[in-house]
């Protein structure tokens, strides 16, 4: 069974007289344990897509299935990590935040067990020394790591991440991206990750969804670069070029329905030729 399935999902916001199409006929299916990355220009509906999946927003038409069940409300099987640095509860410590989520998710678990588990998630994000600090005493990157640990503690089937590292500097960001990949390979949780950053998308994703302005899917790209991905790999440069072009095309609004009806592009990023990996 598919872990996540979008079936012709559209979302239209009606603000006063104006109608804004945020998502348009979005369809794709995610296998359990896969890492999907959504890219697209600003306003192309990336956040809306995640919020619909999280159940914080209702699609105007179409449906979203998680493990075969239709999404109608928020749930602990889909945990969201937001972009904002104020998503932690400031009145709870780092450990308190994780414990709070854990107790809600696992009411059957004893105190000791809960606390051990919370510590193990803190360790997973490398913050065991900061357990008793309050969120305002942490750096932005640390806050986002706590938010990830809190979300993982709930043991969701799918982890949703909306540009969680966007407000951090480039080096912290690269470090956290690598850390996220480690966590993903350890926990094998399904991840849907939104980013603006082409390299981040290429490094992380099994599949890349390129959204265009107007909310339609410009491309669904299986990312077949071998892991661990190296930015200095020649194939990486080729893939980067291709994704860059697609994103450039995604900037322009589709002319009528023509571009839309052609359907999304779906070739693998790097086309293997006879006799081994060849640069397309």
């Amino acid at each position, binding site marked *: 069974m598919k872990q996540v399935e979008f079936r012709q999902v559209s979302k239209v916001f009606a603000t006063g007289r104006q109608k804004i199409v945020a998502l348009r006929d979005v369809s794709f299916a995610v296998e359990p344990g896969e890492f999907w990355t959504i890219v697209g220009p600003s306003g192309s509906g990336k956040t809306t897509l995640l919020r619909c999946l999280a159940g914080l927003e209702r699609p105007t038409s179409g449906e979203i299935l998680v493990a075969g069940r239709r999404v109608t409300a*928020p749930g602990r099987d889909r945990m*969201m990590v937001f972009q904002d640095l104020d998503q932690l509860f400031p009145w709870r410590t780092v450990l308190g935040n994780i414990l709070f989520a854990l107790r809600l998710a696992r009411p059957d678990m004893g105190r000791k067990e809960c606390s051990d588990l919370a510590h193990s998630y803190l360790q997973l994000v490398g913050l065991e020394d900061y357990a008793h600090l309050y969120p305002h*005493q942490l750096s932005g990157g640390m806050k986002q790591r706590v938010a990830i640990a809190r979300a993982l503690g709930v043991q969701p089937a799918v982890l949703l991440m909306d540009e969680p590292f966007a407000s951090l500097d480039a080096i912290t960001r690269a470090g956290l991206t690598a850390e996220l990949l480690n966590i993903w390979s350890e926990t094998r949780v399904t991840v849907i990750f939104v980013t603006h950053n082409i390299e981040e998308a290429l490094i992380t994703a099994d599949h890349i969804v390129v959204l265009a302005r107007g909310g339609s899917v410009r491309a669904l790209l299986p990312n077949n670069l071998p892991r661990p991905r190296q930015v200095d790999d020649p194939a990486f440069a080729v893939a980067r070029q291709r994704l860059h072009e697609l994103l450039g095309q995604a900037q322009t609004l589709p002319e009528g329905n023509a571009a839309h009806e052609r359907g999304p592009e779906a070739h693998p990023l790097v086309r293997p030729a006879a006799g081994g990996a060849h640069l397309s």
Partner: protein
Amino acid sequence: MCLLALVWEFLARLHLWPELLFPPFSSVVASLVDEIAQGEIAGRTWYSLSLIGAGLSLAVLASFLACALAMMFPACADALSALMAVLHPLPAIAILPVLLLWFKTGRHSIVLLIVFSAFWPLTASIHAGLRSVPLTQIEVGKNLGLKGLSLVGNVMLPAALPAIIAGLRVGWARAWQASVAAEMVFGASGKDGGLGWFLYKKRYFLEVPAVFAGMLVIIAIGLLVENLLFKFLERHTIERWGMSSE
């Protein structure tokens, strides 16, 4: 504070004004000690504080109720802000004549006056606080499966705590003013009466040092509540949590 007392003493000793109107600090202290020894001032203070306690608790309950209604039903929010616009600027003491007509003199009228004076600032601040809870934190709560009262108790109220404390501060100050002012306007019923009545009576008998002594007590209580209660509360909650900048 000590300096202030010294300046006071010095100015009074210059006899620029008749001693009857501006007694030196030392005679005020003497009178204060005297009144404390007689037990009158303690009883009056206790009486005032008990009225304020009752009035303020009622006001807090009513404010939370009003805010809950306003958050649940948009029509209630509109009604509340309309009422607030009309009644909040009205000095509480101005409704005293009406209260006296409806409820006669006595503690009920004073308690109601305290409720009225504290309710508006409390409600304004709690409502603003609840509306400005970061949306992300509410959504994290929903994502974790909280809804209804559990969402309110676990996310909304703690997130609104800075505004709630600010509201309590203003509410307490207004309540204190209202109780003193009310008793000075119509006195007390029978033997009961608080610090306002104490001031009124002492002025009537021209016991000026005692009037000043009463004022000192009022100031002292204000400082105690501010420093012991509110500062303590803040230090252990919103300051510790880094939420006090709002």
